[in-house]
Protein backbone atom coordinates (compact mmCIF):
# COMPACT_ATOMS: atom_id res chain seq x y z
CA UNK A 1 0.00 0.00 0.00
CA UNK A 2 1.34 3.35 -1.00
CA UNK A 3 2.67 5.06 2.07
CA UNK A 4 2.96 8.70 3.05
CA UNK A 5 2.58 10.12 -0.43
CA UNK A 6 -1.05 10.77 0.40
CA UNK A 7 -0.31 13.33 3.10
CA UNK A 8 -0.72 16.99 2.16
CA UNK A 9 0.61 19.80 4.25
CA UNK A 10 -2.26 22.23 3.65
CA UNK A 11 -5.83 22.40 2.44
CA UNK A 12 -4.69 24.81 -0.26
CA UNK A 13 -2.21 22.24 -1.52
CA UNK A 14 -4.83 19.48 -1.44
CA UNK A 15 -7.23 21.38 -3.73
CA UNK A 16 -4.71 23.32 -5.85
CA UNK A 17 -5.13 21.31 -9.06
CA UNK A 18 -8.92 21.20 -9.21
CA UNK A 19 -9.86 22.51 -12.65
CA UNK A 20 -12.82 24.63 -13.67
CA UNK A 21 -15.82 22.51 -14.59
CA UNK A 22 -15.14 19.76 -12.05
CA UNK A 23 -17.84 17.74 -10.34
CA UNK A 24 -17.27 17.64 -6.58
CA UNK A 25 -19.20 15.78 -3.89
CA UNK A 26 -19.20 17.07 -0.31
CA UNK A 27 -19.78 14.77 2.64
CA UNK A 28 -21.78 15.91 5.60
CA UNK A 29 -25.25 15.75 7.06
CA UNK A 30 -25.84 18.78 9.26
CA UNK A 31 -22.41 19.54 10.76
CA UNK A 32 -20.95 16.03 11.18
CA UNK A 33 -18.78 14.95 8.28
CA UNK A 34 -18.80 18.31 6.54
CA UNK A 35 -15.34 19.20 5.13
CA UNK A 36 -15.43 22.84 6.26
CA UNK A 37 -11.71 23.37 5.74
CA UNK A 38 -11.65 21.96 2.22
CA UNK A 39 -14.66 24.05 1.23
CA UNK A 40 -12.91 27.15 2.54
CA UNK A 41 -9.77 26.21 0.59
CA UNK A 42 -11.81 25.73 -2.57
CA UNK A 43 -13.30 29.20 -2.15
CA UNK A 44 -9.79 30.61 -1.99
CA UNK A 45 -8.64 28.43 -4.88
CA UNK A 46 -11.41 29.84 -7.07
CA UNK A 47 -12.25 27.04 -9.53
CA UNK A 48 -15.37 27.93 -11.53
CA UNK A 49 -18.33 26.34 -13.33
CA UNK A 50 -18.38 23.59 -10.73
CA UNK A 51 -21.08 20.97 -10.30
CA UNK A 52 -21.47 20.37 -6.59
CA UNK A 53 -23.16 17.48 -4.85
CA UNK A 54 -24.27 17.35 -1.26
CA UNK A 55 -27.25 16.65 0.93
CA UNK A 56 -28.02 20.36 1.23
CA UNK A 57 -26.53 23.62 0.05
CA UNK A 58 -26.26 24.75 3.65
CA UNK A 59 -28.75 26.10 6.15
CA UNK A 60 -29.63 29.44 7.67
CA UNK A 61 -27.75 29.03 10.94
CA UNK A 62 -25.41 31.68 12.33
CA UNK A 63 -22.46 31.83 12.63
CA UNK A 64 -22.28 30.29 9.22
CA UNK A 65 -19.71 27.60 8.46
CA UNK A 66 -18.39 27.08 4.90
CA UNK A 67 -21.03 25.39 2.73
CA UNK A 68 -22.05 24.89 -0.88
CA UNK A 69 -24.14 28.06 -0.70
CA UNK A 70 -20.99 30.11 -0.07
CA UNK A 71 -19.33 28.67 -3.17
CA UNK A 72 -22.47 29.67 -5.04
CA UNK A 73 -22.29 33.20 -3.63
CA UNK A 74 -18.63 33.20 -4.63
CA UNK A 75 -19.63 32.68 -8.27
CA UNK A 76 -17.95 29.28 -8.58
CA UNK A 77 -20.96 27.08 -9.21
CA UNK A 78 -22.89 26.12 -12.34
CA UNK A 79 -25.11 23.46 -10.81
CA UNK A 80 -25.89 21.70 -7.57
CA UNK A 81 -27.31 18.21 -7.08
CA UNK A 82 -28.88 17.78 -3.66
CA UNK A 83 -31.91 16.69 -1.64
CA UNK A 84 -32.93 20.21 -0.64
CA UNK A 85 -33.07 23.32 -2.79
CA UNK A 86 -35.36 24.83 -0.17
CA UNK A 87 -35.56 24.36 3.58
CA UNK A 88 -37.94 21.89 5.20
CA UNK A 89 -39.77 24.77 6.84
CA UNK A 90 -41.34 26.95 4.19
CA UNK A 91 -40.79 30.03 6.35
CA UNK A 92 -37.02 29.55 6.22
CA UNK A 93 -35.20 30.82 3.11
CA UNK A 94 -31.86 29.23 2.26
CA UNK A 95 -29.09 31.53 1.02
CA UNK A 96 -28.91 29.31 -2.06
CA UNK A 97 -32.57 29.64 -3.04
CA UNK A 98 -32.39 33.10 -4.62
CA UNK A 99 -29.59 32.00 -6.97
CA UNK A 100 -31.71 29.06 -8.03
CA UNK A 101 -34.90 31.09 -8.36
CA UNK A 102 -33.13 33.67 -10.52
CA UNK A 103 -31.73 30.93 -12.77
CA UNK A 104 -28.16 31.96 -12.01
CA UNK A 105 -27.41 28.43 -10.82
CA UNK A 106 -29.01 25.21 -11.96
CA UNK A 107 -30.13 22.50 -9.55
CA UNK A 108 -31.12 18.86 -9.69
CA UNK A 109 -33.30 17.88 -6.78
CA UNK A 110 -32.83 14.22 -5.82
CA UNK A 111 -34.42 12.25 -2.97
CA UNK A 112 -31.78 11.65 -0.33
CA UNK A 113 -31.81 7.87 -0.60
CA UNK A 114 -31.62 8.02 -4.36
CA UNK A 115 -28.72 10.46 -4.09
CA UNK A 116 -26.90 8.08 -1.75
CA UNK A 117 -27.61 5.06 -3.93
CA UNK A 118 -26.54 6.84 -7.13
CA UNK A 119 -23.20 7.64 -5.51
CA UNK A 120 -22.84 4.11 -4.18
CA UNK A 121 -23.72 2.76 -7.64
CA UNK A 122 -21.05 4.91 -9.28
CA UNK A 123 -18.45 3.55 -6.91
CA UNK A 124 -19.63 -0.04 -7.28
CA UNK A 125 -19.83 -0.15 -11.09
CA UNK A 126 -23.62 -0.24 -11.32
CA UNK A 127 -24.55 2.17 -14.13
CA UNK A 128 -28.27 2.24 -13.32
CA UNK A 129 -30.82 0.76 -10.96
CA UNK A 130 -34.52 0.85 -10.17
CA UNK A 131 -36.04 2.37 -7.04
CA UNK A 132 -39.60 2.76 -5.72
CA UNK A 133 -38.73 6.24 -4.44
CA UNK A 134 -40.41 9.18 -6.20
CA UNK A 135 -42.72 7.02 -8.31
CA UNK A 136 -45.96 8.92 -8.90
CA UNK A 137 -44.40 12.28 -8.06
CA UNK A 138 -43.41 15.32 -10.09
CA UNK A 139 -39.81 14.04 -10.08
CA UNK A 140 -40.85 11.00 -12.10
CA UNK A 141 -42.69 12.95 -14.80
CA UNK A 142 -41.56 11.99 -18.29
CA UNK A 143 -39.04 9.52 -16.95
CA UNK A 144 -38.63 5.81 -17.50
CA UNK A 145 -40.34 3.47 -15.08
CA UNK A 146 -40.69 -0.27 -15.03
CA UNK A 147 -43.10 -2.65 -13.33
CA UNK A 148 -41.32 -5.46 -11.50
CA UNK A 149 -43.35 -8.04 -9.61
CA UNK A 150 -46.40 -5.81 -9.88
CA UNK A 151 -44.84 -2.65 -8.47
CA UNK A 152 -43.70 0.41 -10.37
CA UNK A 153 -40.09 1.56 -10.11
CA UNK A 154 -38.12 4.51 -11.42
CA UNK A 155 -34.86 4.12 -13.34
CA UNK A 156 -31.96 6.03 -11.80
CA UNK A 157 -28.41 6.42 -13.05
CA UNK A 158 -25.08 6.28 -11.25
CA UNK A 159 -23.56 9.60 -10.22
CA UNK A 160 -19.78 9.51 -10.57
CA UNK A 161 -17.78 12.51 -9.42
CA UNK A 162 -14.33 13.89 -10.08
CA UNK A 163 -13.55 14.78 -6.48
CA UNK A 164 -14.98 13.89 -3.10
CA UNK A 165 -14.32 16.19 -0.15
CA UNK A 166 -14.97 14.39 3.10
CA UNK A 167 -14.15 14.60 6.79
CA UNK A 168 -13.22 11.71 9.07
CA UNK A 169 -12.03 11.19 12.60
CA UNK A 170 -9.02 8.93 12.02
CA UNK A 171 -6.76 8.10 9.08
CA UNK A 172 -3.65 6.00 8.68
CA UNK A 173 -0.89 6.82 6.22
CA UNK A 174 -2.34 4.61 3.48
CA UNK A 175 -5.64 6.46 3.73
CA UNK A 176 -7.78 4.01 5.64
CA UNK A 177 -10.48 6.02 7.41
CA UNK A 178 -12.65 5.80 10.46
CA UNK A 179 -15.58 8.12 11.08
CA UNK A 180 -17.01 9.02 14.46
CA UNK A 181 -20.73 8.40 14.89
CA UNK A 182 -22.93 10.24 12.38
CA UNK A 183 -19.85 11.84 10.85
CA UNK A 184 -19.88 8.80 8.57
CA UNK A 185 -23.00 9.64 6.52
CA UNK A 186 -22.03 10.26 2.86
CA UNK A 187 -18.26 9.98 3.34
CA UNK A 188 -17.72 6.29 2.52
CA UNK A 189 -19.91 6.26 -0.58
CA UNK A 190 -18.64 9.54 -1.99
CA UNK A 191 -15.10 8.22 -1.60
CA UNK A 192 -15.94 5.22 -3.80
CA UNK A 193 -17.67 7.40 -6.41
CA UNK A 194 -14.77 9.83 -6.84
CA UNK A 195 -11.77 9.76 -9.10
CA UNK A 196 -9.89 11.65 -6.35
CA UNK A 197 -10.94 11.65 -2.71
CA UNK A 198 -9.60 14.32 -0.38
CA UNK A 199 -10.19 13.82 3.33
CA UNK A 200 -9.73 16.25 6.19
CA UNK A 201 -8.93 14.39 9.38
CA UNK A 202 -9.74 15.35 12.96
CA UNK A 203 -7.05 13.37 14.77
CA UNK A 204 -3.32 13.02 14.12
CA UNK A 205 -2.69 10.64 11.25
CA UNK A 206 -1.51 7.23 12.43
CA UNK A 207 0.87 4.66 10.97
CA UNK A 208 -0.40 1.99 8.59
CA UNK A 209 -1.39 -0.98 10.69
CA UNK A 210 -2.70 1.13 13.58
CA UNK A 211 -6.32 0.59 12.58
CA UNK A 212 -7.52 -2.99 12.90
CA UNK A 213 -8.46 -4.17 9.38
CA UNK A 214 -11.90 -5.19 10.70
CA UNK A 215 -12.52 -1.63 11.89
CA UNK A 216 -11.70 0.33 8.75
CA UNK A 217 -14.78 2.20 7.48
CA UNK A 218 -13.28 3.33 4.16
CA UNK A 219 -10.36 1.52 2.58
CA UNK A 220 -7.33 3.58 1.64
CA UNK A 221 -7.73 2.43 -1.96
CA UNK A 222 -10.49 5.05 -2.17
CA UNK A 223 -8.60 7.88 -0.47
CA UNK A 224 -5.97 9.86 -2.32
CA UNK A 225 -5.14 12.93 -0.25
CA UNK A 226 -5.17 13.49 3.49
CA UNK A 227 -4.96 16.75 5.38
CA UNK A 228 -4.77 16.90 9.14
CA UNK A 229 -7.06 19.62 10.54
CA UNK A 230 -4.89 22.01 12.59
CA UNK A 231 -6.11 23.44 15.89
CA UNK A 232 -8.45 26.44 15.89
CA UNK A 233 -8.49 29.13 14.76
CA UNK A 234 -6.43 27.95 11.78
CA UNK A 235 -8.52 24.81 11.41
CA UNK A 236 -12.31 24.97 11.35
CA UNK A 237 -14.03 22.79 13.91
CA UNK A 238 -17.67 22.58 14.83
CA UNK A 239 -17.19 24.08 18.26
CA UNK A 240 -19.90 23.86 20.87
CA UNK A 241 -20.51 27.55 20.52
CA UNK A 242 -21.11 27.17 16.82
CA UNK A 243 -23.24 24.10 17.29
CA UNK A 244 -25.39 25.85 19.87
CA UNK A 245 -25.77 28.96 17.78
CA UNK A 246 -27.64 27.19 15.07
CA UNK A 247 -30.80 25.36 14.35
CA UNK A 248 -29.95 22.85 11.71
CA UNK A 249 -32.87 21.69 9.69
CA UNK A 250 -32.19 18.94 7.20
Amino acid at each position, binding site marked *: MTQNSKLRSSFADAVADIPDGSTIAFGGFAMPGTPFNLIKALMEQGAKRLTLIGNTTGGTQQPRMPDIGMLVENGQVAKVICA*FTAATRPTEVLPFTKYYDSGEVDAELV*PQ*GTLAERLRAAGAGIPAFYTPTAVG*TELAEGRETRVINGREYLLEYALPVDYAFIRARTADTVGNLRFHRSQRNFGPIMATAARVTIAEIDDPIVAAGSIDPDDVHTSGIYVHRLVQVPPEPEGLWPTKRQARGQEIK*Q
Partner: protein
Amino acid sequence: MSGTKGLNRQQMADRVAREFQDGWIVNLGVGIPTMCSNTDIGGTDITYHSENGVIGYGAVAAEGHEDLNLVNAGGQNVTLKPGAAVVHHADSFGVIRGGHIDATVMGAYQVSMTGDFANWKLKGQKGGGIGGAMDLAACAKRVFIILEHVTRDGSSRLVTACDLPVTARGVVTLVATHYGLFEPTKTGFHLREIAPGLTVDEIRAVTGGTLTVADGLKQIAVSG
Protein backbone atom coordinates in the same frame (compact mmCIF):
# COMPACT_ATOMS: atom_id res chain seq x y z
CA MET B 1 -59.78 27.12 15.11
CA SER B 2 -56.42 26.02 13.80
CA GLY B 3 -54.34 24.51 16.56
CA THR B 4 -56.23 26.13 19.41
CA LYS B 5 -58.88 23.49 19.90
CA GLY B 6 -58.30 19.77 20.39
CA LEU B 7 -54.91 18.14 20.83
CA ASN B 8 -51.70 20.04 21.26
CA ARG B 9 -48.53 19.07 19.42
CA GLN B 10 -47.21 16.64 22.02
CA GLN B 11 -50.63 15.03 22.37
CA MET B 12 -50.77 14.37 18.62
CA ALA B 13 -47.32 12.83 18.79
CA ASP B 14 -48.35 10.78 21.83
CA ARG B 15 -51.37 9.37 20.04
CA VAL B 16 -49.30 8.26 17.08
CA ALA B 17 -46.57 6.85 19.31
CA ARG B 18 -49.13 4.65 21.03
CA GLU B 19 -49.50 2.81 17.70
CA PHE B 20 -45.89 1.62 17.92
CA GLN B 21 -45.47 -2.08 18.70
CA ASP B 22 -42.72 -3.75 20.67
CA GLY B 23 -39.63 -4.33 18.54
CA TRP B 24 -40.51 -1.83 15.83
CA ILE B 25 -37.95 0.18 13.94
CA VAL B 26 -39.25 3.72 13.60
CA ASN B 27 -38.11 6.80 11.71
CA LEU B 28 -39.32 10.17 12.98
CA GLY B 29 -39.41 13.25 10.78
CA VAL B 30 -38.35 16.74 11.83
CA GLY B 31 -40.73 18.79 13.99
CA ILE B 32 -43.76 17.32 15.76
CA PRO B 33 -42.94 13.71 14.72
CA THR B 34 -39.70 13.96 16.74
CA MET B 35 -41.87 14.43 19.83
CA CYS B 36 -43.06 10.80 19.50
CA SER B 37 -39.83 9.78 21.17
CA ASN B 38 -40.91 11.68 24.31
CA THR B 39 -44.00 9.52 24.71
CA ASP B 40 -44.01 6.96 27.49
CA ILE B 41 -45.25 3.79 25.82
CA GLY B 42 -44.60 1.41 28.69
CA GLY B 43 -42.20 -1.48 28.22
CA THR B 44 -42.30 -1.11 24.47
CA ASP B 45 -38.88 -1.39 22.93
CA ILE B 46 -38.55 0.87 19.87
CA THR B 47 -35.43 1.30 17.75
CA TYR B 48 -35.26 4.81 16.33
CA HIS B 49 -33.53 5.12 12.97
CA SER B 50 -32.43 8.38 11.42
CA GLU B 51 -31.59 8.99 7.76
CA ASN B 52 -27.95 9.75 8.47
CA GLY B 53 -27.33 6.17 9.53
CA VAL B 54 -27.93 6.14 13.27
CA ILE B 55 -29.82 3.00 14.30
CA GLY B 56 -30.93 3.14 17.92
CA TYR B 57 -30.61 6.75 19.00
CA GLY B 58 -32.04 7.94 22.30
CA ALA B 59 -32.92 11.20 23.99
CA VAL B 60 -31.52 14.59 23.07
CA ALA B 61 -28.13 15.04 24.77
CA ALA B 62 -28.00 17.11 27.93
CA GLU B 63 -26.36 20.49 27.54
CA GLY B 64 -22.62 20.15 27.92
CA HIS B 65 -22.75 16.45 27.08
CA GLU B 66 -23.31 16.73 23.36
CA ASP B 67 -21.24 14.71 20.92
CA LEU B 68 -21.08 17.18 18.04
CA ASN B 69 -20.60 14.33 15.58
CA LEU B 70 -23.83 12.67 16.63
CA VAL B 71 -27.07 14.13 15.34
CA ASN B 72 -30.49 12.85 14.35
CA ALA B 73 -32.23 13.75 11.10
CA GLY B 74 -33.24 17.10 12.54
CA GLY B 75 -29.66 18.00 13.39
CA GLN B 76 -30.23 17.67 17.14
CA ASN B 77 -27.38 16.28 19.20
CA VAL B 78 -28.80 13.02 20.47
CA THR B 79 -27.54 10.14 22.58
CA LEU B 80 -27.29 6.46 21.70
CA LYS B 81 -29.13 3.60 23.36
CA PRO B 82 -27.17 0.46 24.27
CA GLY B 83 -27.07 -1.69 21.16
CA ALA B 84 -27.00 1.22 18.71
CA ALA B 85 -25.13 0.97 15.42
CA VAL B 86 -23.96 3.49 12.85
CA VAL B 87 -23.98 2.88 9.09
CA HIS B 88 -23.23 5.06 6.08
CA HIS B 89 -25.85 6.84 4.05
CA ALA B 90 -26.36 4.20 1.36
CA ASP B 91 -26.76 1.50 3.99
CA SER B 92 -29.05 3.77 5.97
CA PHE B 93 -31.36 4.19 2.99
CA GLY B 94 -30.99 0.46 2.41
CA VAL B 95 -32.72 0.10 5.77
CA ILE B 96 -35.48 2.40 4.54
CA ARG B 97 -35.90 1.30 0.94
CA GLY B 98 -35.46 -2.36 1.86
CA GLY B 99 -38.69 -2.20 3.87
CA HIS B 100 -37.04 -2.59 7.26
CA ILE B 101 -38.71 0.50 8.79
CA ASP B 102 -41.91 -0.55 10.56
CA ALA B 103 -43.23 2.98 10.75
CA THR B 104 -42.30 6.47 9.72
CA VAL B 105 -43.95 9.57 11.16
CA MET B 106 -43.91 12.73 9.07
CA GLY B 107 -45.44 16.13 8.87
CA ALA B 108 -47.35 17.19 5.75
CA TYR B 109 -49.15 20.06 4.05
CA GLN B 110 -51.93 17.81 2.75
CA VAL B 111 -53.15 14.21 2.92
CA SER B 112 -55.67 12.80 0.48
CA MET B 113 -58.39 10.26 1.15
CA THR B 114 -56.56 7.85 -1.18
CA GLY B 115 -53.47 7.98 1.01
CA ASP B 116 -51.39 10.42 -1.02
CA PHE B 117 -49.62 13.15 0.86
CA ALA B 118 -47.62 16.29 0.10
CA ASN B 119 -44.83 17.67 2.23
CA TRP B 120 -41.91 18.82 0.07
CA LYS B 121 -43.00 21.69 -2.12
CA LEU B 122 -45.35 24.62 -1.87
CA LYS B 123 -47.53 25.88 -4.67
CA GLY B 124 -45.51 27.89 -7.19
CA GLN B 125 -42.23 27.07 -5.50
CA LYS B 126 -39.24 26.19 -7.69
CA GLY B 127 -37.55 23.13 -6.24
CA GLY B 128 -38.23 22.16 -2.67
CA GLY B 129 -37.00 20.19 0.31
CA ILE B 130 -37.28 16.47 -0.21
CA GLY B 131 -34.60 15.05 2.05
CA GLY B 132 -35.44 11.47 2.93
CA ALA B 133 -39.19 11.96 2.81
CA MET B 134 -39.83 10.32 -0.57
CA ASP B 135 -37.77 7.26 0.32
CA LEU B 136 -39.49 6.89 3.67
CA ALA B 137 -42.93 7.50 2.19
CA ALA B 138 -42.49 4.96 -0.59
CA CYS B 139 -40.83 2.25 1.47
CA ALA B 140 -41.75 2.26 5.16
CA LYS B 141 -44.25 -0.42 6.17
CA ARG B 142 -46.52 2.23 7.69
CA VAL B 143 -46.66 5.95 7.08
CA PHE B 144 -48.15 8.01 9.91
CA ILE B 145 -48.83 11.66 9.20
CA ILE B 146 -49.21 14.38 11.81
CA LEU B 147 -50.53 17.71 10.55
CA GLU B 148 -52.78 20.61 11.37
CA HIS B 149 -56.30 19.78 10.27
CA VAL B 150 -56.85 23.09 8.51
CA THR B 151 -54.73 25.75 6.87
CA ARG B 152 -54.40 29.24 8.22
CA ASP B 153 -57.28 30.33 5.97
CA GLY B 154 -59.48 27.52 7.25
CA SER B 155 -59.44 25.07 4.35
CA SER B 156 -58.93 21.41 5.05
CA ARG B 157 -55.54 19.70 4.81
CA LEU B 158 -57.46 16.38 4.62
CA VAL B 159 -58.50 16.54 0.99
CA THR B 160 -60.07 14.42 -1.72
CA ALA B 161 -56.97 14.92 -3.88
CA CYS B 162 -53.75 16.79 -3.16
CA ASP B 163 -53.30 19.94 -5.21
CA LEU B 164 -49.71 20.26 -4.03
CA PRO B 165 -46.98 18.04 -5.55
CA VAL B 166 -47.16 14.72 -3.72
CA THR B 167 -44.38 12.96 -1.83
CA ALA B 168 -45.86 9.52 -2.50
CA ARG B 169 -49.19 8.05 -3.54
CA GLY B 170 -51.47 5.70 -1.65
CA VAL B 171 -49.12 5.14 1.25
CA VAL B 172 -50.63 6.85 4.29
CA THR B 173 -51.69 4.43 7.02
CA LEU B 174 -52.95 6.84 9.65
CA VAL B 175 -53.34 10.60 10.11
CA ALA B 176 -53.31 12.48 13.40
CA THR B 177 -54.53 16.08 13.55
CA HIS B 178 -55.48 18.36 16.38
CA TYR B 179 -59.01 17.02 15.92
CA GLY B 180 -58.65 13.28 15.75
CA LEU B 181 -57.12 10.13 14.37
CA PHE B 182 -58.08 9.23 10.79
CA GLU B 183 -57.57 6.46 8.26
CA PRO B 184 -57.66 7.36 4.58
CA THR B 185 -60.18 5.19 2.75
CA LYS B 186 -60.87 5.31 -0.96
CA THR B 187 -63.82 7.66 -0.57
CA GLY B 188 -62.91 9.78 2.41
CA PHE B 189 -61.50 9.60 5.89
CA HIS B 190 -62.50 7.21 8.64
CA LEU B 191 -62.50 8.87 12.06
CA ARG B 192 -61.09 6.29 14.44
CA GLU B 193 -60.80 8.48 17.54
CA ILE B 194 -61.84 12.03 18.31
CA ALA B 195 -60.02 14.69 20.28
CA PRO B 196 -61.59 15.94 23.52
CA GLY B 197 -63.81 18.97 22.97
CA LEU B 198 -64.52 18.28 19.29
CA THR B 199 -67.73 17.04 17.67
CA VAL B 200 -68.06 14.85 14.61
CA ASP B 201 -69.98 17.59 12.81
CA GLU B 202 -67.25 20.14 13.44
CA ILE B 203 -64.73 17.71 11.97
CA ARG B 204 -66.94 16.78 9.02
CA ALA B 205 -67.19 20.44 8.06
CA VAL B 206 -63.42 20.67 7.60
CA THR B 207 -62.59 17.26 6.12
CA GLY B 208 -62.36 16.34 2.45
CA GLY B 209 -64.43 13.51 0.99
CA THR B 210 -66.89 11.48 3.02
CA LEU B 211 -66.21 11.24 6.75
CA THR B 212 -67.05 7.87 8.22
CA VAL B 213 -67.03 7.35 11.95
CA ALA B 214 -65.88 4.35 13.97
CA ASP B 215 -68.56 2.38 15.80
CA GLY B 216 -68.54 3.46 19.42
CA LEU B 217 -66.18 6.34 18.61
CA LYS B 218 -63.59 6.68 21.34
CA GLN B 219 -62.08 9.87 22.62
CA ILE B 220 -58.31 10.14 22.35
CA ALA B 221 -56.80 9.58 25.76
CA VAL B 222 -54.80 12.63 26.72
CA SER B 223 -52.26 13.03 29.46
CA GLY B 224 -50.89 16.39 30.54
